[in-house]
């Protein structure tokens, strides 16, 4: 009896491609829409997990594109002020609404009412990247943001590939002008006032719309641009919904995954890379999380980036195995241990 599944390749089937494969060899990437060329410049943006991607990209080669690298600062100062953490010093961009807002601000289509918040320990911070730096003078926040927005424009117009990691659906925004913040007022600056700020939990459609606005606008400015979307596997640290943070995490990731799927169906220059599935899927269930079951451990990041490199960078051009080192795939086989040794194990 024939069925539509009869002659499908192994990756269509759980038993053949997942249940029979060791956890570290799980590879859900069937094909990519494009490859990273040796001259390509890759930019990263998004939630915390995007930081891992950025760090690993720097190890793989010279692909990582940074427009705000803090070259004028000492190494320690660069890290402390988040230079090089992402391609530009925008801090974590958790929501699609944030990146669309950043675009509109960068190109003068939107100006926030509030452009500085008091820091938690004095000084002033940028409400849209409050952890990046605390400034002594309020005016310095605006000056630095002007420079940052110029860097963002340079980045988006010059990069060949943007890796954007979708992180959250929950956010806080201004009730006056709709400005979306990465952190709630009061967390890393600002003062929480329920009359001025409100909570929002975006729907999959909301995310899809904001993401699509951003992608289309960015592509118009930079026709070379290709985008790799990923969904962060890092669960929510906290939810403002009156329910378990675990339930909110499931909703949030599902909505983001749906929006990413919509984008790859709509745009053939947008790809989806399944870091979320690699880390959270049952085949690797829990192996790639730290003790808090939230942070992704280095083994998980290594698995993700191994596949990223294999599929986007190495591809079919991966160097052939060195004959000298594959010749010894045969074990140096100690079939019989010496008696003096064997005595120990009896």
């Amino acid at each position, binding site marked *: 009896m024939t069925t539509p599944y009869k002659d499908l390749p192994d990756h269509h089937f759980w038993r053949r491609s997942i249940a*029979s*494969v*060791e*956890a*570290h*060899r799980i590879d859900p990437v069937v094909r990519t829409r494009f490859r990273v060329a040796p001259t390509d410049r890759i930019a990263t943006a998004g939630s915390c997990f995007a930081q891992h991607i950025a760090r690993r990209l720097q190890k793989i080669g010279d692909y990582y594109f940074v427009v705000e690298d803090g070259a004028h600062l000492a190494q320690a100062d660069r890290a402390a002020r988040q230079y090089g953490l992402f391609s530009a010093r925008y801090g974590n961009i958790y929501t699609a609404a944030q990146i669309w807002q950043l675009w509109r601000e960068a190109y003068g289509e939107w100006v926030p009412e509030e452009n500085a918040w008091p820091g938690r320990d004095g000084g002033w911070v940028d409400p849209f990247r409050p952890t990046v730096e605390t400034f002594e003078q309020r005016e310095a926040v605006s000056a630095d943001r002007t420079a940052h927005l110029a860097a963002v424009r340079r980045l988006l117009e010059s990069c060949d590939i943007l890796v954007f990691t979708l992180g959250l659906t929950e956010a806080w925004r201004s009730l006056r002008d709709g400005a979306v913040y990465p952190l709630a007022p009061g967390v890393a600056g600002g003062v929480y006032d329920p009359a001025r700020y409100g909570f929002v939990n975006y729907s999959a459609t909301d995310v899809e719309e904001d993401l699509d606005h951003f992608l289309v606008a960015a592509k118009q400015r930079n026709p070379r641009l290709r985008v790799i979307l990923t969904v962060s596997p890092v669960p929510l640290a906290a939810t403002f919904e009156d329910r378990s943070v675990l339930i909110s995490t499931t909703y949030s990731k599902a909505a983001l995954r749906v929006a990413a799927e919509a984008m790859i169906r709509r745009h053939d220059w947008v790809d989806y890379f399944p870091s979320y599935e690699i880390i959270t899927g049952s085949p*690797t269930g829990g*192996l*790639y999380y730290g003790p808090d079951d939230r942070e992704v*451990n*280095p*083994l998980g990041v*290594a*698995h993700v980036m*191994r596949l990223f490199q294999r599929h986007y960078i190495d591809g079919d051009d991966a160097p052939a*195995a*060195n*004959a*000298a*080192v*594959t*010749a*010894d*795939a*045969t*074990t*140096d*086989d*100690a*079939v*019989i*241990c*010496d*008696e*003096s*040794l*064997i*005595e*120990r*194990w*009896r």
Partner: protein
Amino acid sequence: MSNCQTLSLARGISAVAETVECEACDAWQMAERLAADPDYFRRFDFMLVLANLRDFPGFPADRLPAHVDVPCFSFTGYHPDCCYVTADGERITDGLIGPYHSMIALAGYKEQLGPAVTARFFNDRIYEQAGYYRQWQAQRDQMIERFAKFGYDIGGVFRKAGRGRSFMHTIDHPDIVLMIELAKVILRRLGRPYREAAPLPVDTLANMSWPVYPEVGEQLGVAGDYRFRPTDRYASLGLNEYLEEVFASFGRWDRSQLRVSWQVQPRLQHIRRLIREAL
């Protein structure tokens, strides 16, 4: 009847089998037991025999009950740097970690480097170029093929015993988790019922261990370290301490006397070349 793995395998079988009791006899005990009773093995209903033992002196081929052969499980995938070293053709078995040695350490020693300089070559670049990252897959395929020749399907063993962990203490000392899974494979092939879950027996081969280097472990989903556990010690040594002690022990021989087996000679030469190029 087998090698150093026999006790673990026998314990593993006893732990999971529902209708079988299993006793172990290693290659060296074989001669003693046969000397005391030439028909010793006929006391048993059935035997599992390490295939390679058939060439062992005194192997009682004509005095065995019904039996099947079982191949040896060896696996360098987690420990691609671990090897045997011979001096004047004799395997050095009284090393810090019994008979096990680091190939990079040996290469450094033969290149007349000191321990501190040699330690620098325990790195991602050397591992990549020496093929360390390709060993796991190659060895897995080889073991599956080796066991398949004897009618055992061990494909699922790697997935189960190696989930987020190494199932080898050293290159030819599997841990008890792996041996339990092998026991199930053997019982299944023999049509004997077994329990999926059972209390783990004492792991007889756990008295020394080679570390999974972090860079290697990263490729395999295993948290690695550079902690070498010498024979019968509980305190492990870091890489620098290990190299200090190993270089001191290598000093007993002229550099030219220290060799590895022919199977892994190409790799040693390759590593020596990489080291020379990097210096």
